[in-house]
């Protein structure tokens, strides 16, 4: 039976440190009793428990209340008009676009983990890829919400699509806003399909373990009759590989396209060729901070410490550090190019960031995105929750502030000083943003409770007892003749 070989480390205690990489034998990715059955049991336990942990109910109550607030705020904004927001002239893009860019960025870690790390054969991704992909899908949902309401008259939103109409008018295919709509539409669909296809074998596990008729029916329909056939696995693995290749292009493409909304305009501070990689790296940075911030409580709350180990947190923090350092480099480069260009408007735009009316946020960004991630150079900080969690949350604050400063400080200091006007969000703006956070957590908590949070089939496939060799001339093969 599979239990003959396990990766159990002799003398291992509850708080085993598996973050050491000695290069010869890598630290185990699955701790505890690592049999196939035990992996199934540990992951299914979360969704099969008759009651969720108390903390789940408290978090769910708060999140759903915020979703209610979101509904009220959207209704209020649509019935009254977008004047209820702080958007003004010349700051026409206020919170809706800030939040849109922020949420799209948060989505990127899931795609990065499930696509790029898969192509690089990083086996440690199996413990965290499923719920990182879930954060992608839910963050894209939150992101899509904002342009939808920002158009002001959402019932005309379909005008963005090339629909034949009596006026004979068509969308402008040169407009970055249309590129953006298509890119986000693509991202939504691709991340949803990637997430769902990856989940099918695990949904079949839920189906086969279900005790009630309702669960059997619902998970049975979702699992599509998956039966673990080798012919199906061959197609499935090929599909996942192709999806990973496509999503790798997409993870680099979506935030690049979002950045063209800014870079294709003529405004100093936006009109820069560095914007596509800048937005993409910032997106991956904030996404990893989010996954780190979610993984720490999730592994505690649902008893998944043997599957989401300290080594996973260690690796997540390392990638956050790398991305944070690239972001720092880009900030330095932006300031340098502004100085080196000799262009007064460009120099003014960058001085406004750190010395203008929003200087506090400018410095907050530099602190949160450049200084804070540097604590991840230290292993103690990477593997200690009370250091890693606040650091990850500060990175998120920093990235949101960055979106705010990029959008507001460029618009509020127009070319002519007579057009200058500061921006202040209203209570409707703040509550809509809070509501979108509530929407994200509502979806995430439902996912944790009712769907396979960790990719069981993938974790099983990296266990030592799942490996075998094909011997064309083995005695067993000869027995067939």
């Amino acid at each position: 039976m599979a239990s003959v070989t396990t990766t159990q480390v002799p003398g291992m205690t509850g708080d085993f440190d598996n973050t050491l990489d000695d290069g010869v034998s890598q630290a185990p990715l699955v701790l505890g009793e690592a049999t196939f059955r035990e992996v199934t049991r540990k992951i299914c336990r979360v969704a099969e428990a008759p009651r969720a942990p108390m903390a789940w109910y408290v978090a769910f109550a708060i999140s759903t209340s915020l979703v209610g607030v979101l509904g009220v705020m959207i209704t209020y904004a649509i019935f009254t008009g977008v004047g209820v927001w702080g958007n003004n002239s010349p700051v026409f893009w206020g919170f809706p676009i800030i939040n849109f860019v922020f949420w799209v960025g948060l989505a990127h870690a899931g795609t990065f983990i499930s696509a790029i790390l898969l192509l690089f054969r990083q086996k440690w991704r199996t413990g965290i890829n499923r719920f990182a992909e879930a954060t992608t899908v839910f963050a894209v949902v939150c992101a899509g919400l904002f342009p939808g309401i920002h158009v002001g008259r959402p019932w005309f939103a379909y005008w963005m699509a090339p629909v034949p109409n009596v006026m004979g008018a068509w969308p402008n295919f040169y407009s970055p806003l249309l590129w953006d709509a298509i890119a986000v539409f693509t991202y939504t669909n691709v991340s949803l399909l990637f997430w769902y296809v990856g989940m099918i074998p695990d949904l079949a596990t839920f189906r086969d373990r279900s005790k009630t008729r309702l669960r059997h029916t619902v998970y049975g329909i979702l699992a599509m009759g998956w039966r673990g056939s080798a012919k199906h696995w061959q197609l499935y693995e090929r599909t996942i590989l192709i999806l990973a290749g496509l999503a790798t292009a997409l993870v680099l493409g979506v935030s690049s396209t979002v950045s063209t909304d800014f870079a294709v305009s003529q405004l100093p501070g936006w009109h820069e060729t560095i914007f596509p990689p800048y937005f993409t790296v910032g997106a991956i940075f904030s996404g990893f901070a989010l996954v780190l911030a979610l993984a720490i409580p999730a592994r505690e709350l649902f008893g998944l410490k043997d599957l989401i180990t300290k080594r996973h947190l260690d690796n997540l923090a390392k990638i956050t550090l790398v991305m944070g350092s690239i972001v720092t480099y880009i900030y330095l480069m932006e300031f340098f190019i502004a100085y080196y260009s000799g262009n007064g408007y460009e120099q003014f735009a960058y001085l406004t960031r750190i010395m203008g009316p929003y200087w506090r946020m400018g410095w907050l960004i530099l602190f949160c995105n450049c200084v804070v991630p540097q604590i991840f150079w230290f292993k103690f900080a990477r593997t200690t929750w009370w250091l890693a969690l606040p650091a990850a949350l500060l990175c998120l604050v920093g990235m949101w502030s960055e979106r705010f400063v990029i959008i507001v400080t460029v618009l509020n200091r127009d070319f002519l000083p007579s057009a200058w006007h500061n921006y202040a969000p209203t209570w409707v703006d703040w509550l809509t943003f809070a509501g979108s956070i509530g929407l994200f957590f509502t979806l995430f908590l439902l996912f944790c409770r009712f769907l396979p949070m960790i990719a069981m089939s993938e974790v099983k496939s990296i266990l030592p007892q799942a490996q075998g060799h094909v011997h064309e001339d083995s005695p067993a093969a000869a027995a067939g003749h």
Partner: protein
Amino acid sequence: MSTAHNVEPVVKEPQKYGLLAEFHDVQTLLDAAVALRKAGYKKWDCYTPFPVHGMDKAMGLRPSILPWIALAGALGGVFTILALAPLCNAFLYPMIFSGKPYWGMPGHIPMAFALGILGGTVFVVHGLFVLARLPQFYHPLFTAERFRRVTDDGMFIAVEATDPSYSPSATSQLLTKLGAAAVEEIRD
């Protein structure tokens, strides 16, 4: 009504689906797969809770056409935009936007890129379902109690009764000889 007494009750005899053999470790399963292939069996399949590396080689599975399906979808997406953009902006309602030409391909590349990825994704996922013949909510193997463990820790080989080399006794003996822990007959 007069012919009613001629109608015989149609009770279909349960058809034999084949044999289901359970294995306890991956290496035995792989060796058994190689042996079954070499013994000339055609209609059989392995069932595992996770993808087994090397299984397609052991079973002699040919590479699928999925990459070509994905390519077709991706090219379809790209050319949709490259055709739609000039159709709308150059022919149906010619309009000059910021002094750019009616038909300027560079400005259409970002959308062609995105739609290419969307087309590839949608095609490859549907290709998976079509080639795997899913969804399929009923399968004879689901009637076996032990087969419920195929999504947990069970590893199986099923040989179908329609296979030319199939014989209830000889195939069963072969599977046992190859290391099967249990062999049972499955009826449809």
